[in-house]
């Protein structure tokens, strides 16, 4: 499907895939409203952003899940086609692979196989799935988020 090397979705070891160019765009589905925070001028809320906490992964995880733009494009899809497919999607953000590499151990393509024992979206195959490789320190997560773009957010106000 691509020149990327498929890495084991269930594996605990990842390597930075040199075939994923720095210009590659990575999408993170934000699936909880508790990580979307208000931006204020004084006490007045003027907007919102996603907390850098959304780029923290479980210590048992090898990476933070993302989807890879060029793989979507090859399937004639865009991030907006994917938006909302995952339950409880509240926002979508993007970062480049170059920015991700600065603040992590790299970027990997980890296509998700079908998981028959699960239900709903979690059961489905996801060939667009990749990961920003952990560990990401708190300061790196903030740096990464300072580079991120909010493509869409459905949590209004505070």
């Amino acid at each position, binding site marked *: 499907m691509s020149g990327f090397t498929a890495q084991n979705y269930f594996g605990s070891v990842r390597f930075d895939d040199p075939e994923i160019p720095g210009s590659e765009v990575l999408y993170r589905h934000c699936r909880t409203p508790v990580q979307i925070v208000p931006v204020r001028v004084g006490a007045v809320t003027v907007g919102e952003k996603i907390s850098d*906490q959304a780029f923290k992964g479980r210590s048992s995880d090898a990476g933070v899940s993302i989807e890879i733009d060029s793989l979507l494009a090859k399937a004639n899809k865009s991030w907006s086609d994917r938006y909302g497919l995952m339950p409880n999607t509240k926002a979508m953000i993007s970062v480049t692979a170059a920015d991700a590499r600065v603040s992590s151990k790299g970027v990997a393509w980890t296509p998700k196989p079908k998981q028959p024992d699960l239900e709903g979206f979690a059961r489905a195959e996801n060939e667009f799935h990749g990961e920003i490789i952990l560990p990401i320190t708190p300061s790196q997560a903030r740096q990464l988020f300072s580079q991120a773009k909010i493509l869409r957010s459905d949590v209004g106000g505070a």
Partner: protein
Amino acid sequence: VVNSGTSQLKYASMPSPRLLAATFSGALALAGPGTLSSNYELSKIIQTRHAEANRWITSQTNALRQLEPNWDGYDAEPLNPSIILRMETLLGDLLPHEVISGSIVPGADGSLQAEWHFDRASFGLLLEECGRLSCWVRPHEQKEIEEFELAARDLFTSAVITYLA
């Protein structure tokens, strides 16, 4: 009070005299004359007053206690109740009376962060699952400042005074 690097942030180790005076006079008024037998009592009264004033803290932490497994859609575990309690205590200790509400945001790594975002700066107090405390301040278009443990408390106090008081 000193300036930290190129930042205009006032880096103070204690709240401003005006802030302290307002806090202590409020506590004394609440307790009444001659009723304070120790600094401990005074600090507890201040904490209680702050907790009452900053109800957004308990509102948010109560919601965090209700988070279920997979609350982030990526299999995150519920937060450890002790980290929520510690954050409540920290904010009760460090925040003055009635500040602009912040956001208390969980991470899938088990961390909890109180954070504020303004047009001119962002700052936060991060409590990691391992117990490490840090504070970061990022004035608009300036380099981030980060401190840990006791220095994090000082930096957070300074940020509160600079941006919230």
